[in-house]
């Protein structure tokens, strides 16, 4: 990095990140078992949020189906853990459902390496399939989002229906050891927590690299104007599929880690509601900033945890209100509050036109018809 890269702003941000990372790594020292476990879950979910920010915040494509990718990763790990717990015998829920031997596709999950690979690659493969067929055919926007919702419904219905193979609505639970360690053991829990924190740092670093590279700039260009990007020679669908796959892989990774802290995975945890919540974390935290996604995920889940215990009905009301408030008043989310003066300037530069369209097509009179107001921020954010 050339010397001029380190502006005061950037240095402060680096200090901030370092402080946050240290705080997270030291958490076992000041949080009790229960809270540490909660934080571990939140950190895993933050990884999903990162992936979502990549595809939505930076590439401009809204997926309301990331629960599926998360769930596939979680199930992959859970299957492995269940087989370990069954110790070579048939898992309990299968015997209850009348199966006499282990289904063929369960067998490879006895190997942890396979389970981890599957937890990462299955979501990515699914994303590749869905992405290829939709983005190549220029299906985007609302239609794509609806397709992701359809994917969620299909997957959850499949998992619920195939009780014998997947545990049905009860999901998969009742496992206790990983790599020979007892998961419930406090020291193991600390180890798993730290592993999750490190995974989050790695995921963040990966996303940071991607968004800061030329690839990231092209993503943002595609988000801002897909046709324009095509016109200067980039194939948007390739970039969109790539971002989508990476985000799915991150969600899968998150699912695998999550299941280690929770002890159960069921279809409801990868359904429509969790998928929408994931998007809300990113929206409220501030999309297109990466750190916003992480903050949003941790804060929102923290709030949910506190409120759900005391006021369960209030939670859904609150998250809904918060979402509406953010969309209207703080479109850049919590992370956008950092840049408040610039945001005020943006407000003042809104468009002049009532019909919002301008003369871009017909009139020969004047060029320069723009449809959106100006973005007031002068310097690119870190």
């Amino acid at each position, binding site marked *: 990095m050339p010397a001029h890269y380190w502006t005061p702003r950037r240095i402060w941000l680096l200090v901030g990140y370092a402080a946050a990372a240290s705080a997270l790594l030291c958490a076992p020292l000041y949080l009790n078992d229960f809270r540490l476990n909660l934080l571990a879950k939140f950190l895993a979910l933050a990884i999903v949020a990162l992936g979502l920010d990549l595809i939505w915040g930076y590439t401009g494509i809204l997926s309301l189906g990331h629960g599926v990718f998360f769930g596939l990763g979680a199930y992959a790990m859970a299957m492995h853990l269940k087989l370990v717990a069954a110790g070579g015998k048939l898992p309990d829920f299968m015997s209850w459902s009348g199966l006499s031997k282990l289904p063929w596709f369960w067998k490879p999950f006895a190997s942890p390496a396979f389970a981890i690979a599957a937890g990462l690659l299955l979501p990515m493969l699914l994303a590749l399939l869905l992405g290829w067929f939709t983005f190549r055919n220029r299906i985007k926007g609302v239609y794509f989002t609806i397709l992701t919702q359809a994917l969620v419904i299909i997957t959850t219905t499949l998992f619920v229906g195939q009780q014998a193979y997947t545990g049905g609505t009860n999901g998969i639970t009742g496992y206790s050891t990983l790599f020979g360690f007892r998961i419930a053991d406090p020291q193991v829990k600390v180890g798993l927590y730290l592993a999750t924190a490190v995974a989050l740092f790695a995921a963040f670093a990966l996303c940071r690299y*991607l968004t800061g*590279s*030329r*690839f990231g*700039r*092209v993503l*943002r*260009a595609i*988000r*801002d*104007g897909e*046709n*324009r*990007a095509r016109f*200067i*020679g*980039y*194939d948007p669908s*390739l*970039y969109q599929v*790539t971002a989508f796959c990476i985000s799915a892989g991150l969600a899968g990774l998150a699912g695998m880690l999550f299941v280690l802290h929770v002890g159960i995975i069921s279809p409801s945890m990868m359904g429509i509601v969790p998928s929408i919540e994931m998007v809300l974390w990113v929206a409220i935290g501030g999309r*297109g900033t990466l750190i916003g996604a992480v903050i949003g995920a941790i804060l929102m889940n923290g709030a949910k945890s506190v409120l759900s215990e005391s006021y369960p009905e209030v939670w859904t009301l609150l998250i809904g209100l918060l979402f509406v408030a953010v969309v209207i008043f703080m479109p850049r989310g919590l992370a956008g509050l950092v840049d408040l003066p610039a945001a005020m300037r943006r407000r003042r*530069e809104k468009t002049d036109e009532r019909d919002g369209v*301008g003369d*871009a097509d017909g009139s*020969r009179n*004047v*060029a*320069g*018809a*723009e449809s*959106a107001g*100006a*973005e*007031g*921020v*002068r*310097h*690119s954010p870190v």
Partner: protein
Amino acid sequence: MLPAQNPRARKASDILRCESVVVDFDGFKALQGMNFTLRQGELRFLIGPNGAGKTTLLDVICGKVKPASGRVLFRGEVDLTKRREHQIAKLGVGRKFQAPSIFPSLTVREHLEIAMRQDRGVFATLTAKMTSEDEDRIIAQLKMIGLEAKAGWKAGSLSHGEKQWLEIGMMLMQEPEVLLLDEPAAGMTDRETEKTGILLREIARKQSVVVVEHDMEFVRNFASTVTVMHEGKLLAEGSVDDVQRDERVMEVYLGRRRDADADRSTA
């Protein structure tokens, strides 16, 4: 006979030559046997009343529209009418449309970076590193379009004129040989228009430029050769003075319709 029409006077370095180009849109003849020659290093202004076919001619050259007949020779070698749009762009013909379409959230420098002549694939952009040559080229370009001081600004906060210059800068990063510009001065302030004219002159020192324009003051101030079109054909060509004195040009601008109108339009 005007110099451009005299074959003996035609220099060896004709970068573009349109010969008898005919474009038919469902019965409406947008171009009726249009002839157009551009020499290397020229800054040519293309003017004419509404419906003359100016934009259609640019569309044909850059490959957006395929003519019914006629050909477009690039460097005297390649017939552009046989090539597709992105191939023509790769050959070195850049087109800038009227409305500025930049990426509002990317900075000025980032625009030039992604517009550079480079591999457009995913893997290439994932692993790309900015060399010092790249940096130098970007800075040189920033200087030329006058946006060096605003390199870190998000494009969305530029003025209209600055956005147009940024787009021209992006075109130049592709190192085209021919630039086709559609009303680059439209919507600009007087000062921005002046700067645009100077920029175009600067560009024309190394590349060839065709500008479609309606702003006559801009044309008068910066044009050396002007091509006037009417009803899909070449009407007159020459210096600004020549064209101003041309009776036929006056007539078409004042809307005195010629008999050809009656069977040309089916609107």
